[in-house]
C-alpha cells in the first residue's frame, strides 16, 4: 500500500512537472496591495520552477482585482476581502462566475507604548478612541494622559481592514496622525508615550505592547481559530473554476511551499 501510494505520488509529480513544461502561457494578476507581496513572492518562486510561464502583477486595490475578473482583463484577481453582493450581481449579469480561493489570513493588532498600563480594549472602546469620543487613557483604565491616535493613510490595505472591522461606517477623526507604513506606526508608538496605533501581526516587536481585543490576544493561533476579531481572509478570485496554469499557480500557493512564502510575505499561512 505504502509503495502504491508512493508510486501514485511520483506519477502525480511527474505529471505536474510534465504539464508545467507544456504550459507556456502568461498569467495576469491584479488587485489588492495587501495580497501583492504574497503574489509577488509566489510568482517569483513559481516562475523559477516553470520558466515557460510569465506572470505579470499589478496592484490597484481589491475592487479593481474583482472587477478585472469580471471584465476578463486579468486571470487572477486579488482581494483582501470577500466579494460584495453588488459585485456578484454584476458578475451574474455578465454570465461570469467568480470563484474565491482563500490563500492566507491577516490580523491587525492594536498597539500602545510599552509604558502604557492598558492591556485590553473592546472593539467599541477602540472605535470610540478612533472617533475621538474617548480622549484620555483614564477613561479606559489607564494612567491619565491624552490619547494620541495614530492611523494609516486612507488608501492602505491595513487601514481598510481597520475601517471595516473597527470603525464600521464611521470616519477616523481628522486629528489622527497618519503614518505611511506599518514600520512607521511602530516607530511613532515606540517614541510617543500616549500613542495608540495598529499594525499587521508580523510587525509586532518588544519595543511596543500589543493590546488584547475583547479579551483575545492577537496571535496566529487565535486568528486561525477565528476568535481574534480584527482579522480577515485574503483571497484570489478566478473567472469560473480555474484550469491550466491558473489552477497550477493557485495550487502552488496552497501547497506547503506556497504557504511558507505567505509567512515570509508577512501574512498568516492557512496551515
Amino acid at each position, binding site marked *: 500500500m505504502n509503495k502504491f501510494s508512493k508510486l501514485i505520488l511520483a506519477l502525480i509529480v511527474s505529471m505536474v512537472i510534465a504539464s508545467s513544461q507544456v504550459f507556456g502561457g502568461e498569467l495576469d494578476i491584479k488587485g489588492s*496591495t495587501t495580497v501583492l507581496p504574497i503574489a509577488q513572492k509566489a510568482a517569483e518562486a513559481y516562475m523559477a520552477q516553470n520558466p515557460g510561464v510569465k506572470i505579470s502583477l499589478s496592484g490597484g*486595490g481589491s475592487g479593481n482585482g474583482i472587477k478585472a475578473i469580471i471584465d476578463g482583463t486579468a486571470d487572477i484577481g486579488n482581494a483582501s476581502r470577500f466579494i460584495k453582493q453588488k459585485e456578484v450581481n454584476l458578475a451574474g449579469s455578465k454570465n461570469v462566475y467568480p470563484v474565491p480561493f482563500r490563500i492566507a489570513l491577516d490580523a491587525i493588532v492594536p498597539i500602545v507604548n510599552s509604558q502604557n498600563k492598558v492591556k485590553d480594549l473592546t472593539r467599541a472602546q477602540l472605535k470610540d478612541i478612533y472617533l475621538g469620543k474617548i480622549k484620555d487613557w483614564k477613561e479606559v483604565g489607564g494612567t491619565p494622559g491624552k490619547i494620541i491616535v495614530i492611523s494609516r*493613510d486612507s*488608501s492602505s490595505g491595513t487601514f481598510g481592514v481597520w475601517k471595516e472591522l473597527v470603525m464600521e461606517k464611521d470616519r477616523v477623526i481628522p486629528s489622527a*496622525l497618519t503614518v505611511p507604513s506599518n514600520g512607521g506606526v511602530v516607530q511613532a508608538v515606540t517614541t*510617543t508615550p500616549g500613542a495608540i496605533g495598529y499594525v499587521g501581526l508580523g510587525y509586532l516587536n518588544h519595543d511596543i505592547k500589543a493590546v488584547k481585543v475583547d479579551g483575545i490576544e492577537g496571535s496566529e493561533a487565535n486568528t486561525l481559530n477565528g476568535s481574534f476579531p480584527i482579522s480577515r481572509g485574503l483571497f484570489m478570485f478566478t473567472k469560473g473554476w480555474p484550469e491550466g496554469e491558473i489552477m497550477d499557480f493557485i495550487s502552488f500557493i496552497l501547497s506547503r511551499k506556497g504557504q511558507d512564502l505567505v509567512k515570509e510575505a508577512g501574512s498568516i499561512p492557512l496551515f
Partner: protein
Amino acid sequence: MKRQIIDKGVHSTFLLIALFSIAALSLIMVFLFIEGIPIFDQITIKEFVFGQYWYPTDDPTAFGILALILGSVYVTILSGMMAIPLGIMTAVYLAEIAPPKVAEIVKPIVELMASIPSVVIGFFGMVIVAPFIQKLFNIPVGLNMFNASLMLAFMAVPTICSISEDAIFSVPVAVKEASFALGATHFETIAKVIIPASLSGICTAIILGLSRAIGETMVVLMAAGGAAMIPGSFFDPVRPLPASIAAEMAEAPFRSEHYHALFAIGIVLFLFTLIFNLFADYLSHKFRQVGEASL
C-alpha cells in the same frame, strides 16, 4: 560663407535644445492640468479648496483640502520665521564681520548643509528631534508642525544664507566707504546702507529658500505627523499638500476620483510656487539698485 553656415547651425542647435527643455516643462504642466481638472466634474472648486474634510477613500468621499493648504502655509511661515533671521544674520556675519579666515571655513560648511538629502533630514526629525521636543516641551506628540518647520528651516538656511551673502558681498565698496566717511559706525553702515543696498538679492534668497520649504515632500511626510486637520497650535500635527500626494498617489486607483484629486492638489501647489516666483521677481525689480549712487 562656410563660417556663416556653421554659425547658423550653432544657433539652431541651441534654439532646439532650449525649446526642448521648455517643451518638456510645458508638457508636464499640461499633463498636470489634464489629470487634475476632471475632479471638478464631481465637486466645485470652492468645495475643493475650502472643504474642511479630506476623506478620499470613504463612502461618501470628501475632497476638501483647506486643512492641507493651511498645513503647507503654516509650516512655510513658521519655518520662514526661523530660517530668515538665521540665514540673513549668518550672511551678514560672513560677508561683513567675520575675519576672512573664519569665513573661509564657515561658508563652505553652510553650503554643504544644502546638500544633505531631504530624506536624511526627515529621518533625523522623526527619530531624534521628535522624542526630544516631545520631552522638552512636555507635549503629547513630537511629530508636529513645529518639528517639520524646524527641519525645513534647517534646509532653507543654507539657501538663504549663501544667496544673501553673495548679494551683501557685491555691494560696492565705494558705497560702504562713503558711509564710513560720514562718520557712521560699522553697525549703522550694515543696518542702513549695506542691507538696503542688497535688499533685492536678499528678497530673492528668502523666496528661493521658502519655495524649497513649500515644495519639500520627504521632510513633511516624515516629521509633520500627517493629520489632515486645521492646526490649533504649533504643536499640532499637520499634513501639508506634498505629503498627501506622496503618501496617497501610489495606492490611488488609476484615473479614479482620488487620483484626479491628488493631481488637483498638484495644481494648487503649482499655483503656490508660481505666485511665489512672480512675487520674488516683483520684489527683486522693486528694490533693484541701479548704479552706485542710487541708494
